[in-house]
């Protein structure tokens, strides 16, 4: 049952991609951890919307399932866990920045330009991967990485990784409507184990160092 | 190789070398307004020493004992090499100018070791100075010899003898070889053959521990070396009168002219000795360097001016 014609879907997805791009950029100057986690949830919502557009346009049950999963994981579970962790470790709410907001923002915009420069000219117009979708996904990856490297707290780095994965997710949703089943399962397991392992190591670090400021992790040099 | 010439050379060296030294000494004395020793005095000395008892350092070894013989033999061999009466070397085919230099080095090496053998510190001092001068003389000597060898294309001693024509190159080479001759014969301004003062002596320092027969042989050998060096000047630069064929008359003329040239060169040496003072030891390298430079200039002028006769 197709409820949306392709052209409308494309226009909607294009808009959503731009909005996602805006949230990614918006996360750069944010100083409060809580706000940046909320922004992540907002990104999740936009991703869910994108998934919904795809679902309406294709009508496949798989796609509807994806919408539900997105809402659950990207909007509720992951931000929830992060907020929980934020309370648990009782760190200062303010994030220490390695770079003042203004130049950081300029650099982030530079990264977006790079993304457009590289991915813009590719022939991707057929299907749901609209003109802005691929560059937006790429930008989200790069900007996510960028937020990791300007922030000092271990938790904010995890936030960055999640932001990067949101970029990947956008790509998955609009370009390929998901991965082959085996791969999708593998990726999911990896993600789960990854979170687990990071949690284990972070806990041990917290126990040993009494801090998760990564600037304390600088004894191994040269 | 020519046996007759060889024996002539050997005989001349044995007999005339001490005489030549006597002449030089007399001439020096004359120029200094002294009445010098008789011309035969070197001969008398050698004769006397050969019969005297020899005193040997208690630290010395067989090197001390045999070095004088080798010194004497090597110089005598060198004397056999140089062309004297005729324009060929008596030992042509057996050795050349480089061999001549080698023989002189061999003799010096033997004497230097003998001087160290006694444990006397005068020996060490003499060795140190003599070997230093020798090292600086050798390039000058070799370059000068090369400048003579280039036109002939050969280091054969007979080939170095020119036809007596005068050229820039020859004059420069003569200058170089003359300085070498002064140094090699141990004369002022390089060394002083008459002194036994530790501040000044080089060659004599090495002889200091010798007495008796070995000393006699060493003196004799030194005289022969002087003769060899002067013959090396006489032949290539003043070839007039040298026999170009081996028959009686030219040889006789050669003998006469050879003896005359020796006396004249000896007088020149004496003149230089009388007119100069001994150089400070560390000025000597400059003099010897000048000799090398003269030799190189001689070579240059061969190529630029167009050769010597």
């Amino acid at each position, binding site marked *: 049952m197709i409820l949306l014609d392709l052209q409308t879907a494309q226009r909607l997805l294009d808009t959503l991609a731009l909005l996602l791009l805006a949230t990614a950029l918006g996360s750069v100057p944010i100083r409060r951890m809580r706000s940046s986690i909320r922004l992540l949830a907002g990104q999740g919502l936009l991703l869910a919307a994108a998934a919904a557009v795809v679902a309406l346009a294709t009508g496949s049950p798989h796609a509807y399932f994806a919408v539900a999963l997105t809402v659950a994981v990207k909007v509720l579970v992951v931000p929830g866990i992060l907020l929980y962790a934020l309370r648990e470790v009782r760190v200062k709410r303010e994030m220490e920045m390695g770079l003042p907001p203004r130049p950081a923002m300029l650099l982030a915009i530079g990264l977006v330009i790079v993304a457009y420069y*590289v991915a813009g000219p590719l022939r991707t117009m057929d299907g749901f991967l609209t003109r802005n979708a691929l560059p937006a996904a790429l930008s989200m990856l790069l900007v996510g990485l960028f937020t990791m490297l300007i922030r000092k707290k271990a938790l904010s780095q995890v936030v960055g990784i999640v932001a990067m994965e949101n970029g990947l997710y956008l790509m998955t949703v609009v370009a390929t409507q998901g991965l082959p089943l085996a791969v999708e399962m593998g990726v999911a397991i990896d993600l789960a184990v990854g979170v687990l392992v990071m949690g284990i190591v972070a806990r041990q670090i917290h126990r040993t160092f009494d801090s998760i400021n990564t600037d304390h992790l600088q004894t191994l040099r040269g | 190789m020519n046996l007759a010439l060889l024996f002539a050379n050997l005989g001349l060296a044995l007999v005339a070398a001490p005489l030549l030294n006597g002449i030089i000494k007399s001439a020096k004395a004359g120029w200094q307004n002294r009445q010098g020793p008789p011309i035969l005095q070197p001969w008398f000395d050698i004769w006397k020493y050969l019969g005297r008892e020899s005193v040997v350092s208690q630290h010395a070894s067989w090197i001390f004992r045999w070095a004088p013989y080798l010194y004497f033999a090597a110089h005598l061999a060198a004397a056999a090499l140089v062309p004297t009466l005729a324009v060929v070397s008596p030992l*042509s085919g057996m050795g050349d100018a480089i061999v001549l230099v080698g023989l002189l080095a061999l003799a010096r090496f033997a004497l230097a070791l003998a001087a160290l053998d006694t*444990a006397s510190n005068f020996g060490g001092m003499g060795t140190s100075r003599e070997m230093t001068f020798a090292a600086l003389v050798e*390039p000058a000597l070799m370059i000068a010899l090369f400048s003579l060898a280039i036109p002939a294309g050969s280091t054969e001693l007979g080939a170095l003898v020119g036809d007596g024509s005068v050229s820039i190159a020859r004059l420069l080479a003569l200058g170089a070889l003359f300085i070498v001759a002064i140094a090699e014969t141990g004369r002022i301004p390089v060394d002083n053959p008459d002194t036994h003062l530790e501040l000044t002596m080089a060659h004599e320092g090495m002889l200091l521990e010798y007495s008796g*027969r070995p000393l006699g042989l060493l003196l004799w050998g030194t005289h022969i070396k002087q003769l060899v060096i002067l013959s090396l000047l006489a032949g290539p630069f003043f070839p007039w009168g040298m026999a170009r064929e081996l028959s009686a008359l030219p040889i006789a003329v050669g003998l006469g002219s050879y003896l005359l040239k020796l006396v004249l060169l000896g007088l020149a040496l004496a003149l230089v000795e009388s007119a100069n003072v001994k150089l400070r030891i560390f000025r000597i390298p400059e003099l010897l360097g000048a000799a090398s430079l003269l030799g190189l200039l001689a070579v240059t002028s061969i*190529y630029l001016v167009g050769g010597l006769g």
Partner: protein
Amino acid sequence: MPNPDIRLYLAPVAIYLLGSLLALAVPKDRGRLSHGTALAGSLLGTALALRALLEGTPGRVASFSVAPFATLSLRLDPLSAFFLLVISLIGIAASLYAVGYLGSEHGSLAGMGAAYNSFLASMVLVVMADSVFAFLFAWEAMSLVSFFLVIQHHQQNDVRRAGYIYLVMTHVSTAFLLAGFLVLFAAAGSMDFGDLRLAAARLPALSRDVVFLMALVAFGTKAGVIPLHVWLPRAHPAAPSHVSALMSGVMIKVAIYGLLRVGWELAGPGPAWWGALILTLGAVSAVLGVLYALMEHDLKRLLAYHSVENIGIILMGLGAAFLLAALGQPVAAALALLAGLYHVLNHAVFKALLFLGAGAVQQATHTRDLEALGGLIHRMPWTAATFLVGAAAISALPPLNGFVSEWLTFQSLLALTTLGFTAGIGGVAAAGLLALTGGLAAFCFVKAFGITFLGMPRSEKAAAAREVALSMRMGMAFLAALCVVLGLFPTLVARLLAPVTVGLVGVVARPTLSLAPLPVPAQGGALAPLALVGLLAALFGLALLLGRSIGGPRRSRVAPPWGCGIQLEPSMQYSAAALAKPIRIIFRTLLRPHREIERQHDAEAAYFVSGVRYEAGIHPVYEHFLYAPAVRTLLALAQRIRALQNGSLRSYLGYLCATLVVVLLLTR
């Protein structure tokens, strides 16, 4: 070919390798077994080399594929055979000597025996290598095993340092060699020397120049050409003496082989400037090498610097050969090659002899410091006599072998003078420098022999010295005899070298060397050492006769030497430093000597000097101005780059981000 079984030519290498295994398998062996095996290998190698040179060489001996692109090919041509001869001859003496010498070494000799045998094997393999891979393989193996021999006494800091500098310099030089080889390989598409030779002929001149320069740096380093020599005076003395003999006598000659093989046979002989460059380097190395030797008071370091000098002399001959070949004078080039290669053999013989002698002195006195030696001729007559032969030979005194090769070198330089002004002046200047070198070398060995063996012993240790073991004396006597034989029978060596010069320039060198005086005066200067010795002996007899007939029977008595009236003490003797002092002053601009005198005054009466500390030496110019700045710069740069790994995860993420961005931008 007259050799039905070419595999026989592999036998020396096989025997050496067997010796290595034996040494490891029988760790209790005190060197007899392993060095006995090495002796057998060397004897066989000598026989095979002589046979190959006299009866014709077998060509390709073996080929073994390590990997599809890496083939170990071996070949014996006249040039290889000649160097095989050099290696094997010295191998005989060093192995013989080692049997007695190693008796005093502490600890297990298994490693030493294995390394020693492998060292000989690797050198043989280098000269037989016929492919790039084989050459580099053997070349590096040679450096590696000799390194292990050098650091035998590794507890001493300076030994380790010597080993480090040695191996690093030779490895870096191998890198140059590798580059040179690969330039040829790129053109040939094959690693076989035969193919490289063909390809080199088609290469543009610039490429061949590159190959030549790379080879020159590489082999120059190994040979110890100034200023690439700094490892040599450290490493050679650090090794046990029979190894020093091999390193100084043979290994650096293997570099000369390499220069001829690569610079001449594969890529050359090249334009005239190659020869001029070699000649210049040779002259510089010869003069500076002997000057530094004169400044040394460590017997083995002194000998090591003489290796630098003699490599210089060899290179003067070879440089003249390159030059003459480039200027179209094959006959004269053959003569110059003969001169250089003859000196290769000669230097191998007398330098090995001298190092063995130094080892004997060290074993007997436990010191190498000249200032602590003296008077050994009375206690070690055999060592003294053989050392004297070596000293006279290296000082180029007739009628020993050093004189013959220097004579040939002078003749080659004279041949240059027929080729116009530049070559002529260069030749004469080189001859002058060669003469200077000869004079200084004679001085240096008067010092080395005189201070070590003559006079009074300058220390207790020297006074208590005893003559060394029989096998050591045999090793030295063998080499001393060779010095004489090679000096008296030059025609023999010329005959052995005839196929070598034919292989490289196509003609046989015909210097007027003879055993008997020639009936006709020769055109280019002639040398008949045997006749000359006859004459010298006759005149020596004449001197005896004259003395006796004029003076009667010999009379002598023994007395203390004249000491100006005071009792002579050993410390009053002229010291090695004092002996060489005039040279230090005359050449001070080159040598940059320094001196420090510190007087301690008596506490109560300041007039009295209670002690004097005197320190003198020469500034290590190359280390100071060439190597130290280079190393400093490199290390400073490294430190700066190391700051990149600053421990900050955010920096690392930044690198990741930047890398990605850069690569992405490159993608478009």
